């Protein structure tokens, strides 16, 4: 979900994605490369992102990932589910004991 969200801001390569997640989360979330690349390749296989080789800002050839419309839909539904889950957890966490 985070990867898809990052890609919503524009196409990006793997390194860029990991940097972006790290930066936007205020260095709280560090995406392990060991999960990032498998995840990217899985997303690609599921058709939620596409990839092509381009020159990066630093003139480095890199594989850029772009979110597809299918990916956007998935992101939306994932985000909705996430919201529901957060709300549910929040509800449980803040619930008062109902008995006397």
């Amino acid at each position, binding site marked *: 979900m985070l990867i898809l969200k990052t890609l919503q801001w524009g196409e990006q*390569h793997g*390194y860029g994605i990991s940097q972006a997640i790290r930066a936007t989360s205020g260095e709280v979330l560090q995406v392990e*490369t*060991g999960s990032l*690349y498998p995840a990217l390749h*899985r997303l690609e296989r599921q058709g939620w992102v596409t990839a092509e080789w381009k020159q990066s800002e630093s003139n*480095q050839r890199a*594989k850029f990932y772009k979110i597809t419309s299918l990916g956007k839909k998935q992101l939306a539904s994932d985000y909705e589910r996430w919201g529901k889950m957060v709300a549910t957890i929040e509800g449980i966490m803040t619930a008062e004991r109902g008995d006397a």
Partner: protein
Amino acid sequence: MSLFRFFRRKTELKEEIDSHLNMATADRVARGESPEAARRAAVREFGNVPLVADVTRERWGWLRLERLTQDVRFAVRQLRRTPAFTITVLVTLALGIGANAAIFTLVNSVLLKNLPVVDPKMLVHVGNDGHDCCVGTINPRDNGEYSNFPTETYKQLKKNVPEFEQLAAMQAGFTYRPVIARRDGAQTVARSVMGEFVSGNYFETFGLRPSVGRLLMDADDVSGAAPTAVISYEAWQHQFAGDASIVGSTFWINTKPVTVVGVAPRGFYGDRMTNTPPDFYMPIESMPELANVTYVHEPGTEWLYIIGRVKPGVSMGQLQEKVNAVLRQAFSTQDGFSTEDGKKQLQKVHATLTPGGAGIQTLQEDYGSHLHLLMWVSGLVLLIACANIANLLLVRGMGRRTEMSLRSALGAMRGRIVRQLLTESVLLAGMGGLLGLAVAYAGTRMLLVLAFPGDQSVPIHAAPSPEVIGFAFALSLVTGTLFGVAPAWISAQAKPAEALRTGARTTASGTSLLQRSLVVLQAALSLVLLVAAGLFSQSLNKLQNSDLKLDVRNRYIVHINPQAAGYVQTQLDALYRTMEDRFKALPGVVKVGISAYTPMEDNNWSNGMGIQGHPEVHGLASIVRASPEYFDSVGTKVVMGRGIDVHDTSTSPPVAVVNQTFVKHFFKGENPIGRRIGSPHAPGDFEVVGVVEDTTYTDVRWADHSMYFLPLMQRPPSDKSPIEQDMSLYAGAIVIETTRPMNDMEKLAQKTLADINPNLTVAKFQTFNEQIADRFTEERMTARLTMLFGALALLLATIGLYGVTAYSVEQRTPEIGIRMALGAERSGVVAMVMRSALIQTGLGLAIGVPVALLSVRYIKTLLYEITSADTQVMAGAILTLAAAACVAGIIPARRAASIDPAKALRAE
């Protein structure tokens, strides 16, 4: 995803990770780190590059294949690192699988192969015995079983059983009655070849098409039709170089003109597997003229095999009933079945319908039991081979326990390790299978030579068929997985920490129970095979050394066929004298005997006997018509009275010479000289003038063989039929005794006979020794092969025992070092190692001896005059095995004794 894309993506992934690292490094450099430090930090941050790549690739679903290639590559590397192990395993497998595939090729082509005809499954053989041969009289039989029929019976079956789409008949004993064939023309030579008389619908029944011209038709098979023949493809190619003008040309068959109308299809070798397939197929109705035989139309003489093609959907049970009913009807008019007793016997008359797709199974019946035995034997060898390989792999697996522990400590998955080991064994098995095929090919050739010596015309090919290749590979794969699982499983049980910690300090548990049981099993199995080999050799030895009461030194047997050469009975007396004179005139020739047939050949004529004055005595005796010098020429000794001499002519009083068994059986041992014998109806036809020793005829196993001998041209006075109908006057063989071995005897015989008459050809030429050796072909094959397999088994078992002992010595090196440091004698160490090797062998013997003793009963029928494993064979097998065990034990034992205690202990 294609493999190509897979590899492209693999490079792309590498590039992607590289670019990641490059960018990360660049960022760090931009922040002021040194390039080297930046790179190191980037890589550290990235983590385990290959692992990430692995996990990522796993998302593609291609990792299995990748792992497989890795495993295979690794396995090849591992196998190359230990060539001794690899070669031992491969040789073991190649021999084990090769031997099995070779035997299976032979079994497949002899026992399972169908005739090369259309839809062989629909063919039915009326009868079940390819040895119910060749020309005989329809008489009641105790079992009521018939496989050989008169022409008349065949015609009735054909007419009255419409369930047969086609019903064909064929001469049962054509191999015993070669024809003399010569192509019309000036430069042609007459040759004695095989010719088979068949019904007109013979080829149609098999659904065959001609190579050239046409095949026989019903119109050819009518009395009075111009004689026609179809030539076999083989003969057409080899004798006449595929000359198409042969169709329509005239051949002189048994001196009578016959038109060849066509060539049989390629690969068709007739209705049965034989080493002498027919060159010519001729219609039954032309036989009386061409072969000058009277029995073709005798309703009481059986001489035909019958094969039919049934219509689809016919119930075999009903068909069987119907065939039997027609047979009983046909037989009911025969003399033998018209008496009170005969009528009862008639109810038992039947012919068992058997699958006819493989044709008449004479050869199959001959070789079946031996081939099945060989299959068992080679199966045992394969079992030993597998045990051996399992053992070698176990030893190797154990040796690599530390390596495995290290690998699993480094994070290798247990499943992966097992898979790796399995890959290794399956790879080995696959390579072994390939080598096995090569061995199988060579082995089958060898088996064919052993099974059918001197015959290239057996329609069996050494090339393994697809079935055999499939069989070999299935076998090797099953073996591979089988012997791969155990070591893999054991290795996978290794607990890394424990294995790494304890290192190599083990004592007696150096070899597992499984390993030792395998060695015991091998020892037991090879003992059984050694005993079998011993028994078969002993049996062959007994057969070959049995006293046949004949003399083979410088004796040559020339088979002839004066009848086929056009001689009529009235010309025979003169012919025989001419042959005697001409052969006697050859330098070096001492004696010339002429007879109907000779000792130890595949031939026999039996008659029912009567003794004058003793109507209560009856029985069968074999008859041989012989010339005056015949007894001397084969080495039969006259023990009483006289032999046949030159004064016994067609006009002198009829006399007979009998053998000792005849005297025992028919005269109760009394002096027979002067008594009279004959057929049951005319017991006074011949006066007995002499007694000869029991020379062995036909088969060594034929004990108590009553025989009588008549002068060549003397007919029974009671027989009033014209001489022209007396087939028994035709001689079949000339026996020549020379002063020295003469290698050119065959040429001389051909020339001498051709000088008398160009149509008088040599039907078969052999030395007396060769003729006798031919009678032991199957026994020799079995003895040699069991010997071969026994040796193979022994070799494998020895390797197995050696492997286990050597391994245990290696494992126990530190222990032995300590023992020796504490003062153990070298001899004590040797004894210790030898003891364990010998205990395993001893256990193998303890199991093997009773098993071997039990197995003897299953092979008893294949043995000659041997009913149990005698002490000689048993002791021989045990000693051989014990000696092999000592060899296998002494090498590692000496190595153990040479361990330097200081070195062994320091090595830890």
